[in-house]
Each structure stands twice: as structure tokens, then as C-alpha cells.
């Protein structure tokens, strides 16, 4: 029986909670007798703490404890590598010694009766430093090869890859493009600031935490404190955005637990907006050289993509910066090299479409430059280089709808009315530009578990420790469960965000529906089959009445060997129209049309929200976002929403169009989904900068394209 609930544009099941203020985020689980913590952070990027004076702070009203490396307990910090941790290096240890590795590193923790008292007393801790010469200027650091590199599938690959002979092909190419593209550091900046409430009962700890991975938090804090992860209960039902910032368990979670232990009371710690720039990761500054060689008729003969990105000097962060260049376009000679630039900064992390957002920007900007050099339409250039298979892996694509995406998006956009010459389209005094880019992101699928429990009254409870930072996991999983159970959606209650529920992978990499959804579907099917068999009926309601007690099933999902037989990715095409003021240099995005081949769409309503959200994120990346890093000391002078510009209502294009190409991919996972959250961000920034070139004739290769760069 199928009820065809998957594919329906349903409103969110948690919508009422969110519009009435009843959805409860990490800092909102107030505990009896709760105290408040505030963090004191280093004002140098490198060196040692020479002295730390806490007497005045300790005497301030309401102070319960002031912790520094002098009096904080020595923590176990047992070896632990979570899926979201860099493969090489060791996490930052807090309040364990006098070393300072980066600006804004925690050096003391103040716990007080009230928020105001904690915040004030934190200003009374006097710290002096023996500073050392740190590395904080990304333009002067010499990039090095990483020890290992993570691929988009989470495994490792050498930092250099090659097929064919790119050097010979570049030297012999009829047409060449060879340019360098720079993307500055960007911060996730979810509107909810990271927060943790920690409460101990003996050696059991409860953490109400902003997290994209509750089991990751339990595992990490267990290792840090040397207690079994099972003793740690992590609760995180609602996450106020994260975009990757809550994938790892950052030092402030340890600090909250330390504070609660020192105070002997539950402790709440919410970071300030400024602190959000010094301890929850960021998209690293990247520098990428892309060299393309092509024949006059527009066939790629060589791709060189050589990129490096900043990381800390205690962990080697790396992301799939160059992966797309290995397979997105057909090319016989391809070389990629990935390097890192270790500095006295805190470790960067995955930010929406990690790797692809940055790497595809460089590749697709270079492709646009090649189209101009060849005098070929940018869409036509891509069609001429459409691969028959993944030429890097030598595998067929499980599905690839690039041609369909170009056709759908170009048609909706009206691309055939484009006048190819730069500065040839105007609206009054404004310069109009049309640009496009290709998008791609891997289909990720990791093992997950779920539980389904049918009740005698004919309803069902379904649960998995998944997260919902905004895409609509609460709703889409309820749909998957209802369809698998053959029940109306109102009779299914789905739960997530609790480490006592069945394990899931991190809520990132666009893998939640593939992974958790497949487990939910399997658990529900199993429970339904069990109930029908035990109840001896074809009708589930009748069977459950007859059984008279709950029927429960758990199931695991895990990828099979499909990745050995297929290359599995989402693909898309993004078209934009910009208007550039020739006197003010201001760029406004007027229209965005995106078409995506992302497999099955579980809920077109929430899927559209994800896609327009990714487009807005891409506008920020292209035109606004830049965490300025003071080269002298690693300080971020614009660590707030007034000076770190993000798109606001007035920046949203009047026209935003999202098209889903019809795709049936039986290979990727049981649900046939390929993920949406990341690909929605990919391709937007290059489509905008390509449109800016078309409008102005100016090629800006360093983001963001602020007005000064166009004047």
C-alpha cells in the first residue's frame, strides 16, 4: 500500500511550534538553580600566558568560580577522532596549560549566579602574555602539502591527482585561461549563537547543546572527561541554523561542562556574536589557480586546479576543494593539487557546500573566461564538454541531469535573449549582466539507525537521533515514515535530536535524507510487516487492535557497493541576472533561476526553501561576506552583523525560481534521494560574478565583489 506522502508539498509538522515561540533551542532548557558562564579569551595569537590575575573577578558579586589553567582540573582528553574532525592533528585543549595558539582562545571561565554578573566579572580577569611571533597573514604563509586529504566521500586521497599530461596539453592548447581566484574567510553566522547548558548528576552529564550530531557530542565529551559516552545525554531538538558550525564539538561545550562541575550546579553558556568568530569554525580563506586549455572548437584539453586553504597549526583541516574539477567536465588531461596554509588561527570547518562552494567557484569562473576567449556561449561550452562518464573514477554516473538542468533553467530564464557582448545590456543607466554556472555536490550516504513503534490505537512513534538545523528533517522523516507504514501523516510522531535515540551520522554533507531516511523507511517497513504477520490481518489498524500492544522494530541503513559501480552526485545549473550601478559600483541580483537534478524530492515545499536559502547564501558569498583577519594578530575586526554583511530582505532578488529535474535514481540509496542542502549553494557565486563580467566587462577574481572593486 502506498499513500504517496513522499513528494507532497506539506507544511512543516513543527511549524506551529516555530511560529508561536514554543520550539525550544539549546539555551532555552533552563534548569533549576542554574548558573551562568562567560569566557575570557586571549588577545594575542601566539605565545604564553605570563600571568593571570583573578582576585578582583572572584570578589565580584555573585561569582561562584573562576577557572584558569592554574586551577582547572586536568582532563583526560583521550584520543578521539569523530567523523567531522580533521584526520590529522589534535583538538584544542582548554584551560590545560599556558599556551596560546590563536586569537580568542579561551584562557579563563567565569561562573556566576546571573548572566550580568558573569559577563561583568569576565572583564575583571587580568591576563598578561609573553607573545611570540605567530603566523596570521594568509598572504605570506607558504602553503604545504597536507599529510592526508579527505575526499568528498570522507575517505582520503593523495593531495595530488593527475590523469594524462596536463603540462603538455596546456603548452599545446589553442586557447588558454590561467587565473587565480581568492575567496576570503567566511563565517557560518547562524542567527542562533552556539550555546550549551550542562548539568552533572554524579558522573552522568546532560548537555542541552546546539548540535548537528548529538552522538558526536557525547563521544567527544566522553573522551575529553574520560567517562563513558553512554553517561552523557545530549539533547538538541531544534537548531537555529548552523550550516556546519555545529558539526564538531567545540571547546565551549567542554567549558560549560567544566563550569557546571566546578559550580556544582547546572551552567548555561551562550557565546556572544563576537565569540562566534573565534571558536566554532569558518569557511577557510582559499587561493586557487585554475589553468584551462582548449581547442578552438571549445573542447577542453587540459585542467590544472591548484588550491590551498588556511588551517590552524594544531589541526589539518581540508575539504573537497578540487573534487569537482576531476569529473564535472570532460577533459583528458587533469591535474589537481591541494595544499594547506597552517597559521595561528583556530581550525576552520565545513561550511555549507564545503569544498564545492569554493572549488566550483574557481572552476566555473574560469570556464566563463574560456567561453569569452573562445567566443562561445557559456552554456554551449559546457554542453560541448559534457562527459559520458566520471572520467576520474572511470565509472558511469548513477544519474546526471546536467543537460536537462541547462535546458530547464535557460528556458525559464530566457537565456536565448542574451546579447553576448559585455556592457551590451542596459536598463536605463544600470548595466545588466546575465551569467550562469554549473553546480554539483556528491551524494553522501552513511550508516544510520531508526526505530519504529506501532501502537494499539493505530498511531506510530518513529525516532532517530537525527538533527534538523532547518531543512525540515522533522517533516520529511514523518513523510517517509507515514508512507512506509501506510498511515496518514497525522498518526505518525517522529522524534529526533536526542542521544538516547538510534545513532545517525552527522547532519551535514546533504546526507540526512539518504542515510536517516533510508533507516526510517526500513524500520517502518519492518514494524508494519511484523504487525501484519502477528496480527494476521491485511489491515494495519485491525492487526494492531488484535495485537493489543506495541510492536517495535529497529533497522539500520548502510551504503552497499553502489559507490564501486557508480559515480553518484547531484548536478544543477544556476542562471542569474545582475544590475550594476556604473557610478556606485553596487551590484544587485535581480533574478536567479536554479535547476537541480537531485534525485527524488521528498517535500517540494521545504526543498524549495532549501534552494532559495542556498541562493541567498550564494549572494552573500559573491557580494558581501568576508571575515576580515588582521594580518598582525589574527583578530577579526568585523566580528558582528553590522560589519560582517550578510544578505538582508532588501538584498533578496525579486525573482527566485527553483526547478527540479525529474530524476529516478535507483542506485544511490533506497529512497532515491541525492541531497539538496549543499548543492543549493554551489554555482551561485560564479553565476553572479560571471554576470557581473557580462554587465561591466570587469572580471573580479577575489570575492566578495564589493563596490570598490568595480569602480
Amino acid at each position, binding site marked *: 500500500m502506498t499513500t504517496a506522502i513522499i513528494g507532497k508539498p506539506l*507544511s512543516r509538522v513543527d*511549524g*506551529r*511550534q*516555530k*511560529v*508561536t*515561540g*514554543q*520550539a525550544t*533551542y539549546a*539555551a*532555552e532548557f*533552563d534548569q533549576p538553580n542554574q548558573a551562568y558562564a*562567560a569566557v575570557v579569551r586571549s588577545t594575542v595569537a601566539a605565545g604564553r600566558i605570563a600571568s593571570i590575575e583573578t582576585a578582583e573577578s572572584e570578589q*565580584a558579586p555573585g561569582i561562584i568560580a573562576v577557572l584558569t589553567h592554574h586551577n582547572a582540573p586536568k582532563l583526560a582528553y583521550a584520543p578521539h577522532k569523530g567523523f567531522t574532525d580533521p584526520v590529522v592533528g589534535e583538538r584544542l585543549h582548554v584551560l590545560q596549560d599556558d599556551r596560546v595558539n590563536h586569537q580568542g582562545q579561551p584562557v579563563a571561565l567565569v561562573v556566576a549566579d*546571573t*548572566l*550580568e*554578573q558573569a*559577563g*561583568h566579572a*569576565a*572583564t575583571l580577569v*587580568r591576563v598578561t602574555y609573553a607573545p611570540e611571533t605567530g603566523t596570521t597573514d594568509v598572504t605570506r604563509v607558504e602553503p604545504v602539502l597536507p599529510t592526508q586529504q579527505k575526499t568528498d566521500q570522507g575517505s582520503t586521497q593523495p593531495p595530488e591527482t593527475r590523469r594524462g599530461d596536463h603540462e603538455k596539453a596546456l603548452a599545446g592548447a589553442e586557447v588558454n585561461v590561467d587565473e587565480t581566484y581568492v575567496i576570503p574567510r567566511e563565517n557560518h553566522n547562524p*542567527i*542562533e*549563537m552556539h550555546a550549551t547548558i550542562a548539568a552533572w548528576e554524579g558522573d552522568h552529564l546532560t548537555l542541552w547543546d546546539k548540535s548537528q550530531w548529538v552522538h558526536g557530542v557525547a563521544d567527544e565529551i566522553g573522551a575529553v572527561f574520560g567517562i563513558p559516552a553512554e553517561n552523557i545525554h545530549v539533547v538538541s531538538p*531544534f537548531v*537555529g*541554523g*548552523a*550550516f556546519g558550525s555545529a558539526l564538531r564539538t567545540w571547546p565551549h561545550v567542554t567549558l560549560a561542562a567544566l563550569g557546571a562541575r566546578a559550580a556544582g550546579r547546572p551552567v548555561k553558556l551562550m557565546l*556572544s*556574536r563576537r565569540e562566534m568568530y573565534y571558536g566554532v569554525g569558518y569557511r577557510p580563506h582559499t587561493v586557487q589557480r585554475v589553468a584551462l586549455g582548449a581547442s578552438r572548437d571549445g573542447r577542453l584539453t587540459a585542467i590544472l586546479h591548484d588550491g590551498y586553504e588556511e588551517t590552524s597549526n594544531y589541526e589539518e583541516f581540508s575539504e573537497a576543494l578540487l573534487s569537482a574539477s576531476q569529473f564535472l567536465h570532460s577533459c583528458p588531461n587533469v591535474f589537481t593539487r591541494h595544499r594547506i596554509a597552517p597559521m595561528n588561527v583556530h581550525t576552520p570547518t565545513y561550511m555549507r557546500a564545503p569544498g564545492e562552494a569554493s572549488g566550483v567557484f574557481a572552476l566555473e569562473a574560469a570556464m566563463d573566461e574560456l567561453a569569452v576567449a573562445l567566443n562561445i556561449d557559456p552554456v554551449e561550452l559546457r554542453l560541448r564538454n559534457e562527459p559520458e562518464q566520471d572520467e576520474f573514477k572511470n565509472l558511469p554516473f548513477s544519474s546526471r541531469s546536467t543537460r536537462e538542468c541547462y535546458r530547464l533553467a535557460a528556458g525559464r530564464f530566457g537565456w536565448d535573449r542574451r546579447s553576448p557582448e559585455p556592457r551590451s545590456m542596459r536598463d536605463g543607466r544600470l548595466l545588466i549582466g546575465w551569467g550562469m554556472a554549473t553546480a554539483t555536490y556528491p551524494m553522501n550516504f552513511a550508516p544510520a539507525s531508526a526505530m519504529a513503534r506501532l501502537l494499539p490505537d493505530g498511531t506510530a512513534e518513529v525516532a532517530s537521533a537525527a538533527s*534538523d*538545523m*532547518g*531543512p525540515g528533517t522533522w517533516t520529511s522523516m514523518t513523510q517517509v515514515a507515514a508512507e512506509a507504514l501506510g498511515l496518514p501523516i497525522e498518526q505518525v510522531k517522529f522524534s529526533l535530536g536526542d542521544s538516547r535515540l538510534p545513532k545517525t551520522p552527522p547532519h551535514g554533507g546533504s546526507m540526512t535524507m539518504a542515510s536517516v531516511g533510508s533507516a526510517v523507511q526500513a524500520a517502518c517497513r519492518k514494524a508494519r510487516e511484523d504487525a501484519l504477520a502477528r496480527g494476521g490481518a491485511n489491515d494495519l489498524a485491525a492487526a494492531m487492535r488484535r495485537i493489543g500492544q506495541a510492536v517495535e522494530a529497529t533497522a539500520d541503513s548502510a551504503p552497499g557497493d553502489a559507490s564501486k559501480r557508480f559515480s553518484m552526485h547531484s548536478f544543477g545549473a544556476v542562471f542569474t541576472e545582475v544590475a550594476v550601478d556604473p557610478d556606485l559600483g553596487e551590484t544587485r541580483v535581480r533574478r536567479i533561476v536554479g535547476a537541480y537534478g537531485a534525485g527524488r524530492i521528498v517535500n517540494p515545499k*521545504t526543498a*524549495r*526553501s532549501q534552494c*532559495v*536559502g*542556498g*541562493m*541567498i*547564501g550564494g549572494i552573500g558569498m559573491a557580494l558581501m561576506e568576508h571575515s576580515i583577519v588582521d594580518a598582525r594578530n589574527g583578530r577579526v575586526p568585523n566580528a*558582528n*552583523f*553590522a560589519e560582517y554583511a*550578510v*544578505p*538582508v*530582505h*532588501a*538584498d*533578496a532578488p*525579486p525573482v*527566485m525560481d527553483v526547478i527540479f529535474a525529474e530524476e529516478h535514481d535507483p542506485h544511490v540509496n533506497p529512497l532515491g534521494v541525492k541531497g539538496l542542502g549543499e548543492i543549493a549553494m554551489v554555482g551561485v557565486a560564479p553565476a553572479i560574478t560571471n554576470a557581473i563580467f557580462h554587465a561591466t566587462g570587469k572580471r573580479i577574481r577575489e570575492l566578495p565583489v564589493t563596490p570598490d572593486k568595480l569602480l
Partner: protein
Amino acid sequence: MTSYDVTRRELLAGTAVAGVALAGVNLMPEFTSLAAAQDAAPAAAPLDIVLRVNGTEQRLTLDPRTTLLDALREHLHLTGSKKGCGLGQCGACTVLMDGKRVKSCLSLAALAEGREITTIEGLAQSEELHPLQAAFIERDAFQCGYCTPGQIMAGVACIAEGHAGSPQEIRQWMSGNLCRCGAYDHIVAAIQDAAAVSSSVGGG
């Protein structure tokens, strides 16, 4: 600007005139210089205040530094009003004060006495959602939901102010409320829907 749009600067000016014991209190610990902190006087004695929130009088004893947002969230446990920056830059804390939108993180609780404060928790009439709340669900005008209470309170005010006449006008007058998930397109549509409802019933 009306007197209800209280900024931190106005608050400080106002307290100087009123002689409320706030001098030397560190209102912005993040931006306090070391020298200023050294000069800081001990915190003033707690204040007994009465806040009128969603039609109910609430008696509180508060540190005079307590913002209206923290009074709501930390003391009254009305956590629908969100903290996204504490600096008046994101709008997640937007509440209505005597019907006008204010950023509650920039308002001191002590100075909200005598004002009628409406938070997201007080917007629905028991089970019946406010038309803008219903429109937010229908239009999927959010993802994570964290900026949503502020967007809705600002949207209610935007409509009441007569600033919801066109999508362009809404975008301008809602630009103080950031949405990092990027739901702007849908928020504007929801406000248009609710504005149409309120004009069809003759205002409100």
C-alpha cells in the same frame, strides 16, 4: 522616530536624567576597555520592577543591567524572543512595546515598566494563530525557525505601520530582521498574505 524606539544611547541619556543608579555599570561587557572595567563601580542594588507582558503583570527583582530580552528569556522563561547578537543588529529579539516594534536586546528591562509588551507567545488568541503566524506556516517562511519570532513581530508591526503595500516596501521595512537560512522570499509572501487579510477585515 517615536519615543518608544528606545536605543541604548537614548536609554543612557534617559537614565542620566532620571537619576537611576546605572552609572558605571558595564552595559556592554564585550566592548569595555580594560581601563573602563577598572573604573567600574560595584553593581547597583537589584531593582524591583513590574513588567506587563502579554497582558499579564510580572513582578521581578532584577540586576539593573538586565536587558528586556534577558528579563523575558532568563527570568520569565518566555524564550520565544531570541538572542542572535545582543547588539541590535539581527532583529531576532523584536517585540512590540505599546504596539511598536523594538529590539528587546537594546532595551533595559527597568525602562520597560509601564509599557505594554507583546512577545511571540502573546500573539495568538489561545488556539487561533495570528494571520501572520498562519501565513508563515503556509508559505514555509522559515527553515530553522530561530529568526522567526522576530520576523513575525516585525512583520505584524510592518503591516500595522502601513509599510506592507508592495513586496519592495516590505523588503525595505523588514531589512532589520536577518534570516541566515535565506527565507526572505517566503517571508515577504507571508506578510503580503497577512496584510491582505488585515485590510479585508478593516485593519488590525
